[in-house]
């Protein structure tokens, strides 16, 4: 019997404290055979579990081009994430996945990419960004716009610095007004506003965005103003999930199961969905 509820065992190899309430785990599969076979695409998610506490849904934040491990970033809010926060290097985390669809990477070849992230919403984008950077020659310009509510809430700080230094990426960072520090050298203002300032060209471009709902709403509006067609705008949705494979009935938006048909949608698809998310 194939038990679809049975998780793989993974072990925490590295813990990074991203912000006061966000942590990133680097997980390696216990079973070397699984580690070898395991494949996923940027944008997919998994069910991470801590045995005895429960399961929680996060995206896979590492790039599929970096084999042998997966990374997940989570914000400490509920029962499971509070238990995860207490774990140490070497502890076991259950993982089921990968589930859901993914970013249409092949369709993005030879296009300009604009990544717009906010807060912990950078996690799914990060997977795709590294995926694209590892295959850099396949894409044209890459622009990254990332913002958070304050400087301390920026995630993946080391990588942000790396992106900033790279010559083949246009990188903009911003914090919400009032969230800046004295040393802050980035922009100040909400992400949609900065997007208007940057004013990316819609020709031969794809915009990929993820962040808090309020930011996504603003970003979608800005992109529309900038003449991006809905098909050119890609985002990921998040709904409460339990099973991750279309059985438990929690993540339905209309006939769509976010866990199977999503979490990646373009704005055209999103417009088709009833307002139930």
């Amino acid at each position, binding site marked *: 019997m194939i038990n679809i*509820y049975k998780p793989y065992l993974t072990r925490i190899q590295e813990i990074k404290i991203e912000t006061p309430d966000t942590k990133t785990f680097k997980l390696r599969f216990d079973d070397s055979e699984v580690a070898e076979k395991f494949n996923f695409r940027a944008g997919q998610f998994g069910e991470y*579990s801590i*045995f005895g506490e429960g399961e929680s849904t996060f995206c896979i934040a590492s790039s599929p081009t970096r084999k042998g491990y997966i990374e997940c970033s989570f914000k400490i809010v509920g029962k499971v994430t509070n238990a995860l926060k207490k774990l140490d290097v070497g502890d076991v985390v259950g993982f089921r996945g990968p589930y859901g669809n993914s970013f249409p990477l092949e369709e993005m070849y030879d296009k300009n990419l604009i990544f717009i992230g906010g807060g912990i919403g950078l996690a799914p984008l990060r997977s795709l960004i590294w995926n694209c950077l590892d295959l850099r020659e396949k894409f044209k310009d890459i622009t990254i716009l990332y913002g958070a509510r304050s400087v301390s809430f920026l995630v993946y700080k080391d990588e942000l610095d790396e992106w900033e230094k790279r010559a083949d990426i246009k990188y903009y960072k911003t914090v919400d007004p009032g969230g800046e520090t004295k040393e802050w050298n980035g922009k100040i203002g909400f992400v949609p506003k900065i997007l208007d300032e940057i004013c990316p060209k819609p020709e031969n471009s794809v915009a990929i965005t993820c962040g808090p709902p309020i930011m996504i709403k603003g970003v979608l509006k800005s992109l529309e103003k900038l003449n991006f067609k809905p098909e050119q705008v890609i985002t990921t949705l998040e709904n*409460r999930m*339990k099973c991750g494979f279309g*059985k438990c*009935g929690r993540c339905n938006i209309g006939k769509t199961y976010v866990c199977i048909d999503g979490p990646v949608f373009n704005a055209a698809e999103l417009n088709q969905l009833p307002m139930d998310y």
Partner: protein
Amino acid sequence: MKNFKIKNDYKNFVKGLLSLNYLVIAPKYENGILKFSKIKNAAEILSPSEYINTVSSTKEYFFPQTEPVIKFTFEGKEIFLKDVEIGKKPKVVLGLRPCDAASFSILDDIFQYEYKDEFYFTRREKTIIIGAACESNDESCFCTTTGLAPDSSQGADLFIEKNNEEEYFLRAVTEKGERLVEQLIAEVEELEEEPKKNPLYEKIEKQIRKKIDLIEAKKWLDNNFENEKWEELSSQCLSCGSCAYLCPTCHCFDIVDEVNYNSGVRRKNWDACQFDLFTLHSSGHNPRDTKAKRYRQRVMHKFKYYADRFDKTLCTGCGRCIRACPVNIDIYEVVKEFAPLVEQN
């Protein structure tokens, strides 16, 4: 497919079944309610004429209220997983009404969509479903609306019916069913010709609530996600979830861990879309935060979403939710609000 006459009476037939080492599950009065329970001897059996329908549906024998999916033990930092065994004994579920039997052909779709839920299907494969035609109905029944009838054998492996001489006969619907009958040759006898229909079934079909045009209903639902009717239809709902727990086709569940010292278990437990905690995100955001939205989800899921994906209605017209609702929210009346009756000649 073949038809078989039951040689002696119904009870003897059950006796034969019991002797075949099957776990027989059939309607039985237990602690004051009629429900599907294990039958130990043939005397306990109710013949199809002795009941209308059970309080709870048969889904619990395939998708139980609570079901361990994985077990684990802790030893220091190490965790050992252990698979869950599920009942190996072959089962016969006997005496399901067409509305219950049909629920499996509906649930099969969702439980094997993309990912196959082996917990459900292992039980499904080991179980033979013997349906029984309805010999009476009550005011809540509306199976004709969902395309069923008192004598429709959809979803069953074998089907018990009365011929026009008031004798029970078995209709083999699937090969699985036929193979079972072959083992019961002492109790049954193959019929040469198709038995004559008992007029009773047509009579009952006419007594049942009039058929609603579900195609029209779906058309209305397609265009009325936003409609103030939802508020009105659900205003008295108490979010008690009785409807979902009794429904033969409701299949939402929760996954919960339980732990006891150094061992634990992960379980699937029933859940219902009428509960406000069902979709509550840990951030505090709730996509379905009002009763109107939750009730809309229930109706839409049953009559539109499921049809969009699987081309089936997620309702069999068993009427359990109507009987159980403490404030008399009647799904038949709700659908009738926006869809016409089918003209009958």
